[in-house]
């Protein structure tokens, strides 16, 4: 078809030579794999951030406790997962710790490790958010007779969440990129799809270029969502 329409226009020439390239064909004919990988990447990220929020909230509250014995586990958890590389955490849990507990597949392991990791970062975000709420708020709530937990839940956290959302979006973006590391244990997310395709076609530039482009697209979308949320909260 395109050959018949060959009008010797420069642009069409390029298009034609593109289509003839093996790398382009590899990428375009395997769009399904990239798509499946992207969906899995998003799943791992979303689940991990969701679990991470719960873990992070708990860890933050533990760490802020007046009682050393309560605060210590929170601190140890946060320090460990922020102080060691995610890559090492993935290897440690998938090959070392999880097999002792249950027979986790690579997807489950990916979600567990990424949740624990993002929980530690989210804990520090939440803690900063809570501490940014005026001390007088806690005092007013306590003076009315609320328990510490009631005051946290009804007074402090509803005010902290606005402060927390922008850094939380950043954490979301960071985690999305970091999930590429779980390719090492064979979770079939985006980077893993790239590895498989590469191992049979050797079209490195095309494949990794496409993978990078998809990550870029996802992170741009997330940061636009973050900007939107921030603007919404500012006008509230």
């Amino acid at each position, binding site marked *: 078809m395109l050959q018949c329409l060959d009008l010797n226009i420069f642009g069409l020439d390029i298009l034609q030579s593109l289509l003839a390239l093996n790398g382009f064909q590899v990428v375009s004919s395997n769009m399904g794999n990239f798509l499946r990988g992207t969906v899995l990447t998003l799943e791992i990220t979303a689940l991990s951030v969701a679990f991470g929020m719960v873990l992070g909230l708990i860890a933050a509250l533990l760490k802020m406790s007046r009682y050393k014995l309560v605060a210590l586990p929170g601190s140890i958890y946060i320090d460990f997962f922020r102080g060691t590389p995610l890559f090492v955490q993935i290897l440690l849990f998938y090959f070392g710790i999880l097999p002792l507990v249950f027979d986790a597949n690579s997807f489950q392991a990916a979600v567990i490790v990424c949740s624990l990791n993002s929980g530690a970062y989210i804990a520090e975000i939440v803690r900063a958010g809570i501490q940014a709420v*005026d001390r*007088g*708020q806690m*005092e*007013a*709530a*306590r*003076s*009315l*007779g*609320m*328990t510490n937990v*009631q005051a946290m839940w*009804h*007074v402090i956290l*509803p*005010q902290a969440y606005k402060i927390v959302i922008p850094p939380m979006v950043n954490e979301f973006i960071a985690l999305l990129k970091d999930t590429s590391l779980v390719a090492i244990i064979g979770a079939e997310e985006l980077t893993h799809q790239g590895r498989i395709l590469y191992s049979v076609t050797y079209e490195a530039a095309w494949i990794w270029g496409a993978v990078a482009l998809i990550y870029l697209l996802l992170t741009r979308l997330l940061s636009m969502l973050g900007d939107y949320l921030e603007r919404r909260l500012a006008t509230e």
Partner: protein
Amino acid sequence: MIKVENLYKSFGPLQVLKGIDCHIAAREVVCIIGPSGSGKSTLLRCVNQLEKADSGKVIIDGVELTSPQTDINKVRQQVGMVFQHFNLFPHRTTLENVTMAPIIIKKMNKAEAGDIAHELLRKVGLSDKDDVHPAQLSGGQKQRVAIARALAMQPKVMLFDEPTSALDPEMVGEVLEVMKNLAQEGMTMMVVTHEMGFAKEVGHRVLFMDEGIIVEQGSPRQIFENPVNSRTQSFLSKVL
């Protein structure tokens, strides 16, 4: 109603309360005056245990707050506190600020809490501000909402820590008026204040604090017209 016995409190090396004794009868209004840093706020905060005293006792209505067995949340429900900077909950409306504690703590239903809140807001002269957020209120209005919020728990005692110090002068009157009405209804009140006029007119007794002790106390007349202690005299000569 309120008994404070031999209360000591330090922040690190700084001793702020050095043996405070005072008894406040039911329906009594006690005003606390004294220079900045003398420990007035700390004393109030020890009374409802926002600050833990190092030693000494606080007893309210027969319950010893300083004993470890006491459920402090239970007692605080009966001790209202009004802060210099209002400390309203900015994420909630005026009405919700008042209904929140009864709903959460007393498990009161929304309608009943709403009725009580409306009555209290009317009493402080703010019946038309239900759905407004604190940010849209003037300072005087904020403080009146804060008083209504504290009253919603039906406390036996009210503590005021410089409730008018953060207000523009033209708003001081409306808040003092509300406090005066409260006093006339028989509320037991401890009021830290720089409003000597209020202390004279509404206070039954005035305590003068300096450097962590109650230096002198007596009827407003006695304190303002015939202070005995030289520190009281020099403080009053500066503020009056």
